[in-house]
């Protein structure tokens, strides 16, 4: 894939070069007024190589942000499927093909030396303060427990402690099982074991694993998030812990799903702007474009990912806001994890969780 992207980028560059040459040749004979008109109000040029995970989320970005941006500025945003080896190298300051790429909050926070800072007015005010200067096109997802509403007619689990109570709420639980994908596993276990949200960090991993062991036999593990839909609908799992987008997908498919927002985790994410970016002016303009409340409201309605600009909630209807993790109505219920600590201890968390999974 990496090779493919390079080839594709080379091809794009080739096409761009051809276009520029053609334009230059075309302009050579024209008078000054014509070329002034062509440049319009924008002095941006070229393209932006934008690396994300594709799928419907990328399509929503294209519709909510990129199409309009290209019409306005003439800069094409070229979406490519992100490759771990490339973006991780770029976080470490190496050269790479991406002008802007998806990066978790923990990764971004631990590599700020190699990232560019955004101007004040382009920063999302709903992001954690230390993260704001470094996130382009920020969005927020939730990690929550959810179930098909019929599963618990008298009301389902209210807290993570309830989630661990297999007598009160019987049934198998769907849980992240891909090697290294610890998600919120340790935080959830510690909360269920009675640790107060403010005392979670530093995470007591052995204590969390001891708590997880108590329900291991009641867990069914998924390798990829979309499996959760299959597990819930087929009755193979009674409750799931996953990113809230999967519940949204089930709702869109006509299922009656309950998402437990209480003690759900708010996870900020977005795109990192590397110092080696090939087109920094255009990326900066795109960052401002994507922080616009109305465009972000459009993206929020399409995906139900939370916005990073608080003004967005003035532009979206109540019923949409009810399914967005960081909407004002959930403010007193949801929890925030410590991105800095998680970033600094990433490798320990990963090896510990992989070892716990392998049992």
């Amino acid at each position, binding site marked *: 894939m990496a090779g493919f992207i390079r080839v594709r980028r080379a091809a794009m560059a080739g096409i761009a070069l051809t276009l520029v040459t053609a334009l230059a040749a075309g302009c050579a004979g024209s008078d000054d007024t014509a070329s002034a008109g062509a440049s319009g109000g924008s002095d941006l040029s070229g393209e932006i190589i934008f690396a994300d995970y594709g799928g419907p989320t990328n399509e929503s970005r294209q519709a909510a942000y990129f199409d309009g941006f290209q019409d306005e500025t003439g800069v094409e945003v070229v979406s490519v499927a992100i490759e*771990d*080896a490339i973006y*991780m190298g770029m976080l470490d300051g190496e050269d790479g093909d991406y002008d802007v790429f998806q990066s978790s909050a923990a990764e971004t926070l631990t590599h700020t030396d190699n990232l560019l800072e955004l101007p004040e007015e382009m920063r999302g005010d709903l992001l954690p303060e230390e993260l704001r200067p470094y996130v382009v096109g920020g969005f927020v997802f939730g990690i929550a427990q959810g179930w098909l509403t019929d599963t618990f007619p008298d009301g389902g689990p209210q807290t993570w402690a309830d989630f661990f109570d297999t007598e009160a709420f019987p049934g*198998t639980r769907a849980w992240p*099982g*891909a*090697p*290294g*994908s610890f998600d919120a596993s340790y935080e959830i276990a510690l909360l269920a074991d009675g640790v107060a949200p403010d005392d979670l960090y530093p995470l007591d991993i052995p204590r969390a694993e001891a708590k997880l062991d108590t329900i291991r036999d009641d867990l*069914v*593990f998924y*390798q990829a998030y979309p499996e959760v839909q*299959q*597990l819930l609908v*087929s*009755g*193979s799992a009674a409750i799931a812990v996953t990113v809230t987008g999967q519940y949204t997908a089930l709702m869109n498919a006509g299922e009656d799903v309950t998402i437990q927002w209480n003690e759900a985790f708010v996870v900020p994410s977005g795109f990192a702007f590397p110092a080696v970016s090939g087109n920094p002016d255009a990326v900066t303009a795109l960052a401002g474009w994507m922080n616009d409340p109305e465009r972000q409201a459009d993206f929020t309605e399409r995906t139900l990912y939370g916005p990073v600009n608080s003004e967005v909630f003035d532009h979206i209807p109540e019923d949409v806001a009810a399914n967005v993790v960081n909407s004002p109505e959930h403010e007193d219920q949801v929890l925030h994890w410590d991105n800095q600590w998680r970033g600094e201890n*990433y*490798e320990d968390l*990963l*090896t*510990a969780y*992989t*070892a716990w*999974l*392998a*049992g």
Partner: protein
Amino acid sequence: MTTPGTAMPRARGIAPVRRPPGTTAAESRWLLWPPLVFFALALGFPLVTLVIQSLEGGGSAYIDALDVPAFAGSLMRTVVMAVVVMVLTMVLGTAYGLAVVASPAWLRFALLAALILSLWTSIMVRSFGWMLLELPRGAIYWFLGLFGLADEPIELYQTTLGMYPAMVAVMLPFAVLPVMSALQSLDREQLNAATIFGAGPLLTFRAVTWPQILPSVLSGGVLVFVMSLGFYVTPLLLGGPGNMTVSGVINAQMNQANRPDIGAAMSILLVGGTMIVYLIADRLFRVSEKWG
């Protein structure tokens, strides 16, 4: 007929000693070059790259690899799993190959079509297919329910028992094809001779058929063993994370931890460990001598 199973052992016979009639020694030497260049590019180059990558930190990646708590256990688990899959596949594959050759034409076609179709289908798709079969209220539960045999949801998904059928199914063609090829090149007159001398079917099989297909059974088995070391998604999905193979641990190092050096060191340890296992097995069972 060239099959994946027979291609590998015959590669050893390329030495110019038995050169085709009408070719000179010099011509034979030139014939050696294409396979040598291919192996250098397809096998040697990536392996050297992997070794270099694993040594980037001055060899500390090997110590780090052994320090990763899930690694040693998953390495052992992977080798044991590969042996189990190999044995099951050899037994089932030999039976399948015999059945194909002994069947009437229509059944032979159906058996072969099933085998080839499964080869053409992505391993991910097949693993998800098995998942739909094995889920507590999946297709097996539904099928048993038709006969009133399933009272409560079956517990097969994400158990060790649940993953082996899928793994054997994935590997079956690589054991069947060499055996079939050996059976088809069997001289029928030998079977007739055995019958004429009064041997029953069992004795004919033991004394005439079996010795002639044994090399193919073994080479198919070795192929399945080596390929089984690379299992990743099938055991994780169907056997649960408790059956995590070394590929899963390597993947976590490469893609999540961003430590390609550790991932490379783990891969080298896997390849090295496999070679040691193979050499010991070769000493004990003389596998390579029985290759065709």
